[in-house]
Each structure stands twice: as structure tokens, then as C-alpha cells.
């Protein structure tokens, strides 16, 4: 059996879930041995193989059209999609902004914060992605495995990866299952 190919990407998150992934420490060697780690934000290859991967991992929620593209691309190219972390699973902290309009959120971020002033400009380049409400991944594309946590525990991440590497579908429960 060929090693399962794994690819990951991040969207509207803080990269903390990928930090937690690295936090599995030397066990990452086991994962590297059992799997073929392809495109990730922390490897050179930036997009999952067009020929497809076995496991796609996405961190972060979906807050603009660029994220939507990343999510659709990953979904198209992977067999099993893992939502990694609370933002991917629920929307997480960025989803707080859903309580406000996008205009209010932008004004707060670029004009009203303590580090900006009234001369602050809201970026309006037409090439920029268009902002949307913050959504959990499964609101945009179907998700197969939910791995919640802010960030998910390294042990939980290792458990999920090692199960997938060995061709099993992980079932999170007990100590491995927690949200923040």
C-alpha cells in the first residue's frame, strides 16, 4: 500500500493549530515515515497535488472569497477533509465579528483601533478578496473529520494523523475531545 498523501492549508485562523501540530515533537518523524507529507504552509510546496491527496487538513474558518477558493480546492483534491481547530469547526474567535457588519469590522480594524488614526484607510484594492461572514468550514464544503480545540491538543492531532496514516477513521472521545 502506498503511503497516504497528506496536505494542509490555513485560512481564517492564527496558525496556532499548525503550531500545535508541530508540538507533537519527535512523533512527527513517525508521521513522516508513515505518510507522504505534501503541500502545507510550512513546507515548500504550496498547493495540494492536482492529482489529489488522501487527507486534506484545513485550519481556520472561512471569512472571504480567497478562503472559499482554498476550501473548495482542498475539498476537490482530497479524499478525507479534516477541519483542524475551533475556527475550522465552529468559526472560532474571528466569528465574533459576525455580530457586526463587515463595514463596522473594517472601520474598527483600520481606523478606530488604538494603533490607527482617522487617516487610516480601509484597503479597497479591487484585487483583494471580498470579505464575507465568518463561517465554519462545513458551512461551505463537506467535512469528514472534526478536530476541535483552540488549539487542538498535540496528542489529539497525533492520534488523528496516526489513525489516518494507518487507514483508520479516527473517533475522538474522552480526554482527546475538547473545545475551548
Amino acid at each position, binding site marked *: 500500500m502506498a503511503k497516504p498523501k497528506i496536505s494542509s492549508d490555513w485560512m481564517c485562523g492564527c496558525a496556532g493549530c499548525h503550531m500545535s501540530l508541530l508540538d507533537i515533537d519527535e512523533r512527527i518523524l513517525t508521521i513522516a515515515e508513515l505518510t507522504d507529507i505534501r503541500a502545507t504552509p510550512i513546507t515548500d510546496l504550496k498547493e495540494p497535488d492536482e492529482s489529489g491527496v488522501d487527507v486534506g487538513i484545513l485550519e481556520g474558518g472561512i471569512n472571504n472569497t480567497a478562503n472559499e477558493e482554498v476550501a473548495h480546492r482542498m475539498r476537490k483534491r482530497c479524499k478525507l477533509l479534516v477541519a483542524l481547530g475551533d475556527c475550522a469547526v465552529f468559526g472560532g474567535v474571528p466569528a465574533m465579528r459576525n455580530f457586526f457588519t463587515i463595514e463596522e469590522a473594517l472601520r474598527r480594524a483600520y481606523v478606530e483601533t488604538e494603533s490607527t488614526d482617522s487617516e487610516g484607510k480601509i484597503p479597497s484594492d479591487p484585487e483583494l478578496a471580498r470579505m464575507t461572514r465568518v463561517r465554519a468550514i462545513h458551512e461551505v464544503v463537506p467535512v469528514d473529520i472534526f478536530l476541535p480545540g483552540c488549539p487542538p491538543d498535540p496528542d489529539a492531532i497525533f492520534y488523528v494523523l496516526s489513525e489516518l496514516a494507518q487507514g483508520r477513521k479516527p473517533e475522538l472521545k474522552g480526554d482527546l475531545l475538547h473545545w*475551548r
Partner: protein
Amino acid sequence: MVNVTIDGKTIQVPEGTTVLRAAEQAGLKIPVLCDHPHLLPFGGCRLCVVEVEGMRTLQPSCSLPVSNNMVVRTNTEKVQAARKFILTLIFSDRNHFCPYCQVSGGDCELQNAALNLGMTHWEYQPNWKPYPVDASHEYLVIDHNRCILCRRCVRACGELVGNFTLGIEERGASSMLVCDVGVPFGESSCVACGTCSQVCPTGAIIDRRSAYQGLEKKTESTASICLGCSLGCGVNVLTRDNRLVRITGRWDAPVNAGVLCKLGRFLPLDEDRQRITTPLVRKDGKLQPATWDEALQAASLKLKPLAGKNGSGVAAIASPRLPVESLAAFKQLFKGGFRSDTVTTLEEGASTLAASALAAETGPFETDLSALEAADCVVVLGIDLAVEEQVLGFMVKRSLPSNTALVVIDAAENGFTPLARAALKPAAGAVNVALRGLSAAIRKLGLAKAGTNGKDAEAELKSAAEQSGILADQLVYAGGMIAKATRPVFIYGKNLNLADLKAAADLAALVGAGKNLIGARGAANSLAAAQLGLDQPFKRNGHQAVYVALGDDVPSQRLIQQLEGTPFLVVQAAYSSRLTAMADVVFPVEMWAETSGHYINIEGRVQGTAAALKPAAGVRSNLAALQAVAASVGLSAEADWQAALAERKAPVALALS
């Protein structure tokens, strides 16, 4: 008894037991959200559904009584699927964002229920409509985004506290938790007892002082008692890194069964007085830090020659918040050792003198708090339970919906007057006249259960009405209400003098409730102080030195004035105050949460406090400080407090071992 089989286990339970409680007895855990062991079943959240053989649909176990030979299954696939679906709907009803909720990670019953069912995500997204956050209250915050409408808070506010501030308006998805008729929490009739925050299963009602200071699993919990008044409510003192985080009511406590008042739950967290951590000695007119040896030497140098000098020696005054061990040692040292004629407490017997005097004549005449549970009439005499002994007030208020008649008799303004069926406000000093008037009214009505009914009562009633300034009709109305009750209880407070108290005891005897009195006593150990005879008025007069065992108490303005110009003043205190600033020697001692010792509550119950915090290195217990002073002057502070308490007849039976 009926037989019920739950998950294959057959047990016998009393008729009327709910399936949920029966399952608990069988050692099975059914998840719940709206259910709370101290509240009546409600059946609102449906998380506790179970399969019952012969019943078409799933049944809520919290509100379903068992019937004989019922067969229940609590954890089938169908049940689990239903529970997951119920939680999915609850999560999507409002906006539950675990990453920024203070109870997330162990303290949230909603999250725990989801994790126990293995839920990794929500099928449906949250509501996204922003719900209001009411932060208008001094101690509590309501975040409606996190409310699951379980009504635990509403039920606790009514069933346990009798305050009925919280309620639900509208129906279905429009249902909202409201305060009174929809006013901000901070402007409502809330008494800030915080019971709602203690029962809230989510982070919808949190208290401002302890929010985001750590989950319960990260704090240490010490079972202790509150020293705020004479009730002695059971508390859990939650600490983290030797710092006070939160105080909760102990559900298994015999006095309060989980409920606390603002004084017990919140005020201790607002402590902002400056702590004294090292002994201080006045040198060159200034208080300066010293070692315990230096301070003891400075104190003994002046105190020792004064031993035995009656009237011109040492006067001593202690806080009635000190543990009984310290009070007994205090008495032994100053009364027994120094032979001082002025050894008392800060209260100077204010809330106990009348009761002690009556007890000396008649022996115990009071009952315990459980009498309130069965009471069908409560007569409140000379105490405002909205301010003092508030949890006792909650016990009275929560009994009102079950048709308990409340009669308030107080010469002063009383917060319970609006709740009373009859409120009598006699002229100042005429409470006993009003009580005699009530007795006369009862005899006139021919309702006296002891003593004589008679015509002479008419004249007595008339004169009582005139002297007390209360209409005779009112006395007859209230008297009839008290006399017709089968189990009346009389609660009295420190505004009653001996004549008032005697009149109250006579009235109680007249209606056949001879010992159904409950006396509120002010401070945590006022009863113990009274039993030790530490209840005389304090006068400095010609005393050459005064010793104040203040503990963590607040010195009154009056005491400070009296002690001005004292030739030699020694204070043992936890906090710096104007009194310690006047002192010649200051010994640093423990505050309440650092103390372990015993307290005698309102009903004679002997309860222990446990130290939840570790004091700074230089701080000693009140007892150790007194013992050190005793040793430095060559006297003894050794005392058997149990024996000392029993030397005097008490108003209520003391539960001494």
C-alpha cells in the same frame, strides 16, 4: 415502595420518585441541564430523555414519576441520538462561543454534556443574532447569548431565595430571561445573593469578581463557614495561588443548603483594607516595624505591672468574629489572669443581653431553623431581615408562596413590611406593649391555647392600642392570624429589650408555640461571647491600658473615640485602621479565610471554619497571639471553651460534644 428496572437493574424506590432520581439511586448518571437537585423538576431541556417500555415516545426522566414495574433504558442509541439532536438545537438557539466563554473547559454543563456525547461539532450554526449582555449589575453579568432558557436561575430566585426577581417573558424562540418587568439587572429588585450564578449551567450568569480568574478545576476549594452574621452559612472558599477567587454556597451545608447573601458571597471579595504583616511598636512617637519578640517585650513591659489592678489596670475588648477558642483564651487571659473588670466584645452584648437574661430565668426558649420549614406563620420582631441575617430572610420569603402568613412588628422601618400580611409599627419603645396587645386580642377572640381567655382582655387591648399607637382592630387582625396558625415561629432581633422579649415569649406560649423562637444575634460568635460573659458595656474610665483583639473586624467610630488618649493601647489586627494607627503595639493576626476555629451559630450549632489561605510569615492566629502575650506576662490563656460555654444557661440548646 415501587419496583423499577433501569438499564437491567431492578431497585425499589418510594412512590413519587422521578425516574432521574431512581436512576441516580441505581448508580446511573443521566445527563441533565435544566434539572438541579435543589430545585423542583421542570422538564424544560429534554436532555434527560429515556426510553420507557410501553411508552410511545421518549420521556423526560426528570419529571416522570416511576410507576410499579416500569422498565427504563437510559442510554440506547435512540436516546443518544435524541440527546445529540437536543444539544444541536440548544447550541443553534443562541450564540455559544466556547473560546471566549469563562466557563469553557470544564465548568460549562452544556459543553460537558456535548463532549460526553462525543459531539465534535455543531450540525447547525449559531443564531448569529446578537443578544444583549446586561452588565448593569454591581456583581453579576447576564449574557443572553449563552442562555439556554433552562430557568434554573428563575427557579432558584423564587424557590430558594423567595425574591422572584428573575422571570421569563414571551414564548418559544422569543423567550427571554428578564428582571422584574424588563428593567436592567442593576436596577431590579435583585438582592445580589448570587444564587442564580451558582446554579447557571452555562456562562449566561457570571459574577464579575471571579470571572475569567480560572476554572474550578484550577482552584482549590475549602469547605468552611461564612462569618458575615450569626447564621453560619456553609461556604466553599475557592482560592488560586493563595488568592481568594470566589465564594460559593455549600449545597450540603445544614444551615443554608447552598444559598448565600451578598454579604457572604461578594463583599469579602471587595476587601481593600491594607494588611498588617509585621508587628509594630511605637518608637519616638511613630509606629515602626518590629519582631514579635520586640513587640511582645514592649507590650509586656507596660501590661505586666497592671495585672490585678482592678479599674486602673487593663481593659480588654474583642471582636465577636473571633473563633470561640480565641474568645475563651481572651477571657482567661484578661478576666482570669489580669483580673480586669472590663472584658467584653465590640458588641457589648447588644444583640444577646435580653436573650441571656431570659435564658437565666427560664432556660432554653428557642428552636432551630428547621422550624421555619413547617411554619405556617412567621412573626418577625425588631429585625430587618432584608439587611441582617439575610439568608434567614430568604427562608422566610421562600415560604410565603405556600401561604405562610408573615407578621412584622418593628418600631423602626422594616424592609419586610411590604411582604407582610400584617405589619405593626409600634411607637418607639412600645414593642412589648404591642405584643401584650396581641396577647390580649387573642384572649379576647377566645383563641388562647394556654392561659385564660376572658373579658378582661378587652380593657387590656384598648390600653395597649393607645400606648403602642396601633389600632385595636389591627392588633385583633394580626393576633387572630398568629393564633389560628398551627406552627407559628417568632424571629426576633437585637432591637428587642428584655421586656419585649418576655412579651414575645408569653405571646408564643399563649398560642401554643412555647419554644418556637429564633433569635438573630448579630455577629458570627455573638452567642459564644454571650455564653462566656463577654457582653458587658465597655468603658475605659481609669484603665491604664486597653487591649483590643480586633481580628479582621472593623473598629467602630465610637470605639475609636473612646480609646483616644488611652495611656497604652495594644491592638491585634489583620488590617490597618485608625485604631491600629493609634496603638502603641500592633500584633498582626489572621483574617477570616486564614483562620481555623469554631463558631456557635444562631441555633446553637457548633461549626468549624477551615483555613483556605496561608497568611504571610509574620502573621499569627488570634489564639497564638493571645497565647504569646500571656506567656510574655507570665499568665495563662489556656481555657476549655466547651466547658466555659456551658457555664451559663443559653437561650438555645448548644450542640457541644
